[in-house]
Each structure stands twice: as C-alpha cells, then as structure tokens.
C-alpha cells in the first residue's frame, strides 16, 4: 500500500499530462483542443500540490487551529497553484477568443481543414 501511495499522486499527474497532450495532438476540434490544454494544466496543479503535501498535515491556515499544534503542509506550492488556476482560466478564455475568430474567418474549427499556413 505505502510503496504505491508514495508515487501514485505523481503518476496520476504524469498520466493526466500525457492524456491531455494526446488529446491535443489528435483533436479534430479546436474547442476540444483548448479543453485538452486545460487538462494538461490541471496536471501541473496536481503535481505541485502533491509535492507540497505532508503526511498528517493540515492546511497552513490558522483561523481555526493554533499555530504549531498540528503539522502543516507547504503553503508555497499552494500559493503558486491558486493564482495559476484563475489566471489559467483567463488564458483559456483568450485561446477561446482566438478559436471564435478562427471559426469566423475560416468557417470551421477542424484543424484538418485549416491549411493556409504551410511550407
């Protein structure tokens, strides 16, 4: 049990990242591709938070526990991840805005039909 659980979170992060990459590479729809990109992004959060976890720890928020009474997990990775979640959503929105324009100008959101830029 423990041998597996000690690497399982990292493996899940890797799996999610690779799955997102696969979806992105084989996507037939740009909106779907943007969704896959946000899956890749979720993998980075999972990895970051898994790295910061401490056995038996609790959140480093001392509104309802006394400081020092319980071990706490790493707050730094949480800060890194939490800003990135919201920012990631707005970046997704920017990508979707580009997709909207692609749909308008090309009349399709299938990457296979976009063949203007090559060579």
């Amino acid at each position, binding site marked *: 049990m423990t041998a597996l659980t000690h690497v399982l979170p990292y493996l899940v*992060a890797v799996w999610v*990242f690779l799955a997102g*990459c696969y979806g*992105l*590479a*084989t*996507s037939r729809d*740009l909106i779907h*591709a*943007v969704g896959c*990109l946000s899956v*890749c*992004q979720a*993998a*980075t959060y999972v*990895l*970051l938070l898994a*790295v910061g976890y401490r056995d038996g720890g609790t959140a480093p928020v001392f509104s309802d526990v006394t400081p020092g009474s319980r071990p706490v997990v790493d707050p*730094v*990775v949480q800060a*890194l991840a939490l800003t*990135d979640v919201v*920012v990631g959503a707005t*970046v997704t929105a*920017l*990508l979707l805005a*580009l*997709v909207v*324009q*692609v749909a308008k*100008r*090309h009349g399709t959101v299938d*990457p*296979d039909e*976009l*063949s*203007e*830029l*090559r*060579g």
Partner: protein
Amino acid sequence: MHHLLPLLVAVPLLGAALLAATGRHLPRTVADGAACAVSAGSAALALLLLAHSSPPLTEWAGGWEPVAGHSVGILLTGDGPGLGMAALVCVLTLAALAYSRRSLDEPPHGHAGAFPALVLVFQAGMCGFAIAGDLFNAFVWFELMSVVAYALTGHRVEEARAVQGALAFAVVNSLGAYALLMGIALLYARTGELALARIGDALDAHGPPDALVLAGFVLVLTGLLVKAAAVPFQFWLPDAHAVAPTPVCMLLSGVMVELGVFGVWRVYDTVFSGPGGLPAADAERVLTVLGAATAVTGAVMCWHQRHIKRLLAYSTIAHTGLFLIGLGTLTPEGDDGVALYVVGHAGVKAALFACAGILLDRYGSVDEHVLHGRARPLRGVAVMVVAGALGLAGLPPFGTALGKSFAEEAAGGPFTVLYVLTSAVTAAAVLRVAARVFLGLGPTPREAGGEGAEDAYETTGSGEEPESGRRMARVPDTMTAVPALLLAGALAAGAVPGFGTAVARAVSGATTAGLVHTSVHWTPLGVGLGLLSSLLAVALAAVAVARPGRLAVPGRALPLRRLQSGHIGDYVAWLLVGTTVLGVLALPAVLSG
C-alpha cells in the same frame, strides 16, 4: 540603486494600466505618445541600471532580505546580461511603438489605448523575465510575455491567417509553459527552493544527477526552447511571425525569441552547471546538436520562401540555432560572442521587418513574386534592405559580424563552416528578394498572381491586407527613420570601439564574477570569415536571380517543407518528440553518474 530594479517591470505596467483605463477617452496621438514616453523612460532606467551593474545588483522583492542565507522573497538579478537584455527590450519596444504610430490602422472605436497598452505589458513581461532570479518568477513573466504575444499576433482579427497563426502560437507555447511548470515542480520537490542559485546549491548538495534532475532539465528546457524556436519546437514561429502586425514582429523576432536563448543560458548557468546538475559534456551535446539542426532547418526553409515576412521568420530560426551553438561551447568567449550577436541581430532583424512592413503598407503584398520590380521607387528602403541583408551575413563592421566572429571562433571546427553557410544563405535569400523586388532583376515570375499555380506546400504573401487599412500613397518619415536608426545601432555595435569589450565585461561580471576578462575586438580571421559569408551571400543571390531554376529545386526541400503543415496537432506531436530527443541527448549524464 538596487531598489529600482522592480521599476523596470512596474513602470511599463503602470503605464499600460493607466492607458487602458483612460484609452477610451484619449485621442490616438496622445495614447501613442504616452506609451512612447513610458517606454523611453523605462529604457533610460534600464540603461542607468546597466551602467551600475558591476558588481551585479541584487534585490529581494518585498524587502525580504535573506536571514541566515535563506529568504522567503523573490530574488531579482540585475547583472550585465539580464539588464542588457532588459535595455535591449526597452529600446526595441520604443522603436516598435514609434513605428506603429503611423503604420497601424486606426484602432477600433473605443480601443485607442489597447494596442500600446498591450505592447507596454509585453515590454514589462520581457523585462521581468530578463531580471528574474527566481525560477517561478521567471515562469510568471515568461507566461505574461507569451499571453500578450498571442493577443498581439492575432490583433488583426479580420485576417484568417492571423488568427490561425496566433492560435498555433498560443497552443504550442502554452503547452511549453506547462512543461516548464512541471519541471519547476520536480525541481522544487527535490530541492525545496525556488531561487535559481538556491536550487543549484541544493542540487549540488544532493549528489550526482539522476533521472529526476534529467527530467527537470528536459522539461525546463522544453519550455524555454519552445520560446527560442529550436528544432523541433520551431513550427509555431513562422506561422506567428508571418501574420503578426509588423511592430509586433520586430519585438517577437528581435528580442522575444532571443529571451528564450537567454533563459537557457541563465538556467543552465545558475542551476545545472554544478556537480549536481548536468555535466558540461552533455549540456554541450544537447545545445550544439539542437543548435546545428535549427540552423540548418532555418536556413533551408528561409531560402525556399516567397512570403517575405515568413522568410525573415525562418532566418530568425536559423540565427537562433547559431546562438544555441555559441552558448553550447560553454566558454566565456562563446557567451560574449552570442551576447554581441544578439544585440546586432536584434537591430538588423527589426529593421528588416520594418522594411517588409513598408512594402506591405505601400503595395498590399509581401510576396516576392507579386512585387517583382514594383518597388523600384522606394530607393531608401532598398538600401536599408540590402544593408540589413549584409548585416545578417555578418559583413564587418556590423555588430552581428563581431559577435559572430567570436562565437564561431569559440565553437571552432565544423561549426565555423556552419556559421558561415547559415548566415550566407539567410542573407542571400534577403538579397534575392531585394534584387527582385526593388531592382526588378531576373525574369518575371510566370504566375505573378500567386494564385492557382502555386504548389501545395507554399504560403504566398499575396493574401495579406495592408495594416494601415488602405495602401499608403507615400511612406511616412517615422516608418523609414525607425529601421534606419536600428541599422545604425547594429552598425555601431560593431564599429564603436570598446562596445564589444563592454558587453564582454558585462557578461563576464555575471558568469565568472569578473575574474576572466576577454577583450572583444576584430581579428583578421573574424573579418575574413565575415567578408567570406557576405561574398557568398551576394554570389548565391546573384545566381538565384539570374538562373531561378538552378538553385530553387522545390523537390529537394519538400520533405522538410511538408513537416510545416500548419496543423496544430502536428506541432504538439513534434513538441513531444522534442522532449524525448532532449532526454535522449542528455541521457548519458545519468547513465554515467
């Protein structure tokens, strides 16, 4: 003095925020003028800080000075290379803003401040990346400059190609950024630190490199090399640079791509160069192999383009390859040479893009065949394009020539040949364009319309819309003055005695703490090689113009051109392959360790 470092970021950001807040009510000239003033102010600040950068400035953001060697704050590093890049960014942004005042279409109603504000945020992001001394902070600014670059690339939303190129750019670079973040997480797991120097120390304390260090190295490098457009991560670059508005192209090709190279240098030098990082031999292998592949690919593709902006984009790829080879020597001479080369290249490439922009605005096309002989009246622009081409070739006394001679001497052996050939081929392509477009030399291409007869794997330049909204009757003075000044700057970088040595001192102040001083000056061999590649470029261009059939064999480069398919899925697949290649190239470090 060191307290002023964060202002490099804060000033342009504040300018952008105020412009965005008031942009709705400002007339366009005021908005543009304000943006130029902010950009000029931060350029002055960057130069001032650069003058005081020896010994390197360090600043802990938020005043979190280290206690017992450890801090919880963010380190900003104001050393020679960092501040030098920041100064380059500021100067080039100023040039781009000055150029865009007359070139861009009237902004949509109510968005007068949006374009200059975005450019200022772009500047802030690039400056922040240049002075970041903290891995996650570097990631944040990296992401900021990427996000702004996507928006700026797709700025001309009426154009089908612009939005497609911007989307490919955005998807590939976002994925690269996530790879970088994964790498940061892995390194944090091992070391528990985020400041670059601390990570390096902690890796050294841990012992010889293992699979974790390798993966961290590969992932971090993937993110940075995507930005630097190294093979096989380069596919997004021509798609994006060919369609972005001209002032944005100047920034993208002039400094943003080079910042990727700078990031590789910074990260390797501070994090992975110790005993716990990657041995020098492996880093050398990774950088030189990728650099050589990039240089060759860029040069070949550059030669086969007829879309002028795309041609320039490929020449940027070729030169990035040369930068990577120079860095791959891991010697102070290589670093100095590349630093100077980057400065010279920024001036030359931005000037060339500006000239291409003039063509687009004046004639509504950037296709070499369509424009054949049509630009005869633009003599001044013709002189600038030829000068820029010779600058790319490395004709002394351009700054590119001085930097190149140093880098190629440091690389030595077969790489010298590669340097000469790559710079000659990219310059020859530009000279060919100049001869055909401005002088009307050579036979008129048969299918001047550019439609129908083109082979399937070609992007013509005839579908572009002038950025000014309509074709200009005459070229405004600012649009010609900007490239002229940029070229003059590139020339001065090589011609002004002492500039090269100053650059070298700034670089060595960061790497060897000023212990090793290399003096950079012209050597007979360097001048000779520079002249050789210029002559080669002229000869190649002459043959290409006189006998178009002889050199432009479309069949031979077709497999390479087919790879550039314009398909986002392909680009992502190549990105995955690229990480694997990086891993394989660096693998011996782990196996031996």
